[in-house]
C-alpha cells in the first residue's frame, strides 16, 4: 500500500497576498505624507503641549522635518509589509505605519496653523477622545453581550436614548443621580425586553425588530419630552449631575492623568466594564455558555445549557449597559433633548463590528472613532484648510474597509441573528 502524496498548491497564490496589498497601500500613503505634507508644512515648530496650560511642557518638532520624518516611517512600515513580515508582526507594523501617517499629517496641520494657535493640546485631545468614545463603548458592549449569545442588537440607539431619557426624568423627579442611574438602566432594559420577547419568543426578524424599537424609542421619548420636559423643565428635566472624581496618584500622570483620572463615574464604569466583560466572556462559565449559544445553540442545548434563558438574560443585561451609557449624557453632561443620541447607537454597532465582537476590540474601535471626531473639531478650531466633514467621514470609511476584510477576517458569531427553535 502506498499513501499518495497529496501536497497541494498547484495554483500559485501570486505575489499579491492581502498583506502585501495592505503594505502597498500604506507605502503609497507614506510617500504621499512625506512629499505632500512635507511640502505643505511650514518651517515653524509644531508644538504638542502636554499640560493643561499652553505654556507648559511640550514636545516640539520642526513642521517640515516632522512631516517628512513621520512620512518616511510610514513608508518604511509599508515597505516592510510589502517585502513580507511574519504574520504576528503584521498588526504591529501596520499600526506603527498608520500612527506615523497621522503624526505626519498633524505636523503639517499644526505648523501651518495661524500664529498663536499652532499647538495641539494633548490633554484636551485625549480627554475629548474618551468623552466622545464613551457612549460608543457602552453601546458596543451592549452589542457584544447580545450578539455573542446570538441576538442581533440593532436597537442600541433606542436603548441609549431610553436610558438617557429615563435617567433625566427620574433623576429630576427624585433629585438624585443614583435614582436616575437605576432608572436609566431599567429604561434600557425595557427596550431590550421588547427585543428579547419578540426576537426570542415570537421569532420576529431581529434586524427589523431593532429598527422598529429605535423608532419606538424616538417616538416615546420625543412625545414625553414635548409634553413634560418642555412645559416644565424645572420639574422634569433638571437632573443633578455626577461630579468629577479625581483618583489619587493616577491623576498626576502626565497627559493621561488630567485627561482620564479626573473624569466622572461613567468614564470609570465604562472602562471597568470593558475589562470585566472581556474577562467574563473568555474566562468564566457564563462566558463559555454565552459564546456556545451564539455559535452553535443546538450543541449547547444537547449539553443542558438553557439556550433561550441565557439569551433573555444577556439581552436584558445589554439593555442595562446601554441604559447606563445613555445616562452618561443626561446625568453628566447635558439636559435631555429630543433624539439626543443622534445616531451614536449605530456608530456603536460599527465599533462592535470593527472591534470583531470583542469588548477590548470594541473599546479600541470606539476610541478610534472618538479620536477622528475630536480631531475634526480641533482642526476646525485652528482653521484648517481641510473640510472637517472629510475627517468626520473617515471612521466610517475605515469601518467599510474593515468589514470588507481588509484588516483581517471579521467573523460574526455563527448563530448571530438566527432564532433558536428546539428540535
Amino acid at each position, binding site marked *: 500500500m502506498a499513501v499518495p502524496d*497529496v501536497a497541494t498548491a498547484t495554483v500559485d497564490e501570486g505575489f499579491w497576498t492581502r498583506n502585501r496589498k495592505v503594505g502597498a497601500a500604506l507605502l503609497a500613503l507614506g510617500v504621499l505624507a512625506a512629499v505632500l505634507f512635507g511640502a505643505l508644512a511650514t518651517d515653524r515648530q509644531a508644538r504638542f503641549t502636554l499640560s493643561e496650560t499652553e505654556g507648559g511642557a511640550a514636545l516640539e518638532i520642526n513642521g517640515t522635518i516632522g512631516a517628512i520624518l513621520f512620512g518616511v516611517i510610514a513608508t518604511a512600515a509599508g515597505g516592510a509589509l510589502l517585502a513580507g513580515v511574519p504574520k504576528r508582526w503584521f498588526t504591529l507594523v501596520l499600526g506603527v505605519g498608520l500612527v506615523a501617517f497621522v503624526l505626519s499629517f498633524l505636523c503639517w496641520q499644526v505648523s501651518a496653523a495661524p500664529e498663536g494657535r499652532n499647538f495641539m493640546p494633548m490633554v484636551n485631545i485625549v480627554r475629548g477622545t474618551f468623552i466622545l468614545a464613551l457612549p460608543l463603548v457602552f453601546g458596543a458592549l451592549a452589542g457584544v453581550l447580545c450578539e455573542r449569545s446570538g441576538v442581533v442588537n440593532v436597537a442600541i440607539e433606542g436603548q441609549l436614548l431610553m436610558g438617557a431619557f429615563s435617567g433625566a426624568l427620574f433623576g429630576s423627579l427624585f433629585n438624585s443621580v443614583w435614582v436616575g442611574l437605576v432608572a436609566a438602566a431599567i429604561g434600557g432594559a425595557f427596550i431590550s425586553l421588547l427585543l428579547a420577547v419578540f426576537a426570542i419568543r415570537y421569532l420576529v426578524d431581529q434586524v427589523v425588530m431593532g429598527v422598529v424599537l429605535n423608532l419606538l424609542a424616538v417616538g416615546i421619548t420625543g412625545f414625553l419630552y414635548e409634553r413634560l420636559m418642555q412645559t416644565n423643565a424645572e420639574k422634569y428635566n433638571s437632573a443633578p449631575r455626577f461630579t468629577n472624581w479625581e483618583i489619587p496618584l493616577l491623576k498626576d500622570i502626565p497627559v493621561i492623568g488630567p485627561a482620564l483620572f479626573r473624569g466622572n463615574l461613567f468614564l470609570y464604569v465604562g472602562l471597568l466594564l470593558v475589562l470585566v466583560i472581556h474577562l467574563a466572556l473568555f*474566562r*468564566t462559565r457564563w462566558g463559555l455558555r454565552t459564546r456556545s449559544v451564539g455559535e*452553535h445553540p443546538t450543541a449547547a*442545548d444537547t*449539553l443542558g445549557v438553557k439556550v433561550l434563558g441565557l439569551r433573555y438574560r444577556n439581552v436584558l443585561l445589554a439593555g442595562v449597559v446601554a441604559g447606563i451609557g445613555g445616562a452618561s449624557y443626561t446625568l453628566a453632561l447635558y439636559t435631555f433633548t429630543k433624539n439626543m443620541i443622534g445616531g451614536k447607537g449605530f456608530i456603536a454597532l460599527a465599533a462592535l463590528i470593527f472591534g470583531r465582537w470583542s469588548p477590548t476590540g470594541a473599546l479600541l474601535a470606539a476610541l478610534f472613532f472618538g479620536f477622528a471626531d475630536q480631531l475634526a473639531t480641533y482642526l476646525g478650531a485652528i482653521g484648517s484648510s481641510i473640510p472637517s466633514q472629510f475627517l468626520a467621514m473617515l471612521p466610517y470609511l475605515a469601518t467599510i474597509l474593515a468589514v470588507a476584510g481588509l484588516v483581517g477576517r471579521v467573523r460574526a458569531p*455563527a448563530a448571530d441573528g438566527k432564532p433558536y427553535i428546539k428540535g
Partner: protein
Amino acid sequence: MEPGEIHALLGENGAGKSTLMNVLYGLYQPDEGEILVDGKPLKLKGPSDAIAAGIGMVHQHFMLVPVFTVAENIMLGAEQVKGGIVGFLDRRRARREVAEVSERYNLRVDPDAVIEDLPVGIQQRVEIVKALTRDVDLLILDEPTAVLTPQETEELLAVMRSLKAAGKSIVFITHKLGEVKAIADRITVIRRGKTVGTASPEASRDELAALMVGRSVKLTVEKQPATPGKPILQVSGLVVDDDRQVRAVDGVDLTVHAGEVLGVAGVQGNGQTELIEAIMGLRPTLAGTVTLDGQPIHGWSTKKVLHAGVGYVPEDRSVDGLVKEFSVAENLVLDIYDRPPFGKGLALKPDAIARSAKERIEQFDVRTPSADAAVGTLSGGNQQKVIVARELSRPLKLFIAAQPTRGVDVGSIEFIHSRVIRERDAGTAVMVVSSELDEVIGLADRIAVMYRGRIIGLVGPDTPREEIGLLMAGITPDAAGATPTGGAAGGPDAGTPAPTPESPGNEDKA
C-alpha cells in the same frame, strides 16, 4: 438494554430511529408512552436530565462548537469552576480530565486543538470523549459511520468494543447491515416509526434487509452493458477552492462519454461537491478547463451551462434544488420559465405551465395532491422526483446527479435509478456522484474515486468493493491497475491488499 451490551437499531432513512433517540436524550418530548431506566419510569425534561440519568449521545451531525477548542467543547455544560459565584473556568482541570478519559479508553485527542481544524474522525472521537467525561452508562451513537472512511469505521468499532468491555451499554443506530452484523449483540429493526422485529446478529443480510424495508428489494440495478460514444464532458487539470478558500479540487481530469454512466465515489467532503459546482458554473475555477462536447464551458454562467444541454440534480435538494414555498408546477419550470411555451416577454403562461406539470407528474409518478401544492409539503422521494422530472425534460447532452437518492424511500430510489439508466441508454453522458458506494457500483459503468480533491483511482464496476473502499481512504494498490489516468481497469490484481469479505466498512445498503 443490558449493561455492557451493544444494541443495534436498524432502519431505513426516515424510519424514526433518530427521533426515538432524541426522545431518549430529552431533546423531544414524547406524545405518549414512557421510558424505563432500571425499572423506574423516567421523565426527561431536557438533555441535562438525560445526562444525569447516565445517558449520553453522539449525534449524526456533531454537536461541537467549531471555533472552540476540544477542551472547551468537552467542558461546556459541565464546567469545573473556581472563584465561587463568578465561576472562572478551571481549564487545567478540564484538560486533565480529557487526558484521563483519553488514556483510559485509548481515545487520543489534543485538548487544545480547535475543532474546525480537526478531521471528521477525530471530531467524532471528541464527541465520544465528551460523553464519557459525563460518566454515562448508556451511549447512543446516531449514524456514526455515515461520514467515516472504511478504516475510520474499523477504528470506531474497536472503540465500541473496548467501551463494551468497560461495561458501558451502547445503542448503535445505523442503516448499514454489515456493521450491525460485525458488532451488535442484539438488533431491533424499526420501520415507519414502529418496531417490526428483533433479530440476532446471526440473521442473514437478506432477512435483515427484508425486515427493514418490509418487502424484498432489488439490491442491484438492472441494466444492459453500456455502449459508450464520443466524449461529451472533458475536465482537465481542474482546481477549485471551497468556501473557506481551502483547495477542494486539486487537479482533476475526467472524461464522460455519451451513453455511459461515470460514478464518482468517495467519502463526503473530498471535493465531489466542489467539482460538480465548478462544472455547473456555481463556483469559480482557479485553473484547468471544462469542455462540453468540444466547447469550453468553464467561466460560463450556470444558466448558460444548463441551456447548453446539461441536467443537474444538486446534492441538497431543499437548499439548491427546489423553492419549497413554490408549487410543484412552478418548480417544474424553474429552468425554462422564461422560454416558450412557458413564458413570453415579461409574462408567464400559466396554462402551458399547468399542462406540462400534469404530464410530468404522471410520467415521473410524483405523488402530490395537486400540481399547485407547495413542493415543501411533499415527501423527500417525491421532491426528488420533481427535480429529476424537471432536469430530464430538456434535451440533454450531459446529466449530472449528485446524491440522487439521499433521504429518499426505496420505491423512489428504484424509480430514479431506472430513469438514470434510461437516460444513459438514450445516449446522454451521465455522471453520478454518491457517497453510497452501492449506488455508485449499481449504476456506474466506470467508477472514479475521489480522495482529497483528486481522482485517486478509475476502476470498473466489478472491482471488489474492498478495493474501492481502500481507495476511498486514500490507499492505492502498489501495482498498476488503478492509476489516475488508466481507463476502465479490470478486476483485482496481485497488488491488491487482501480484502476481508465481511469488513464492515464495505457496506451493503438495503
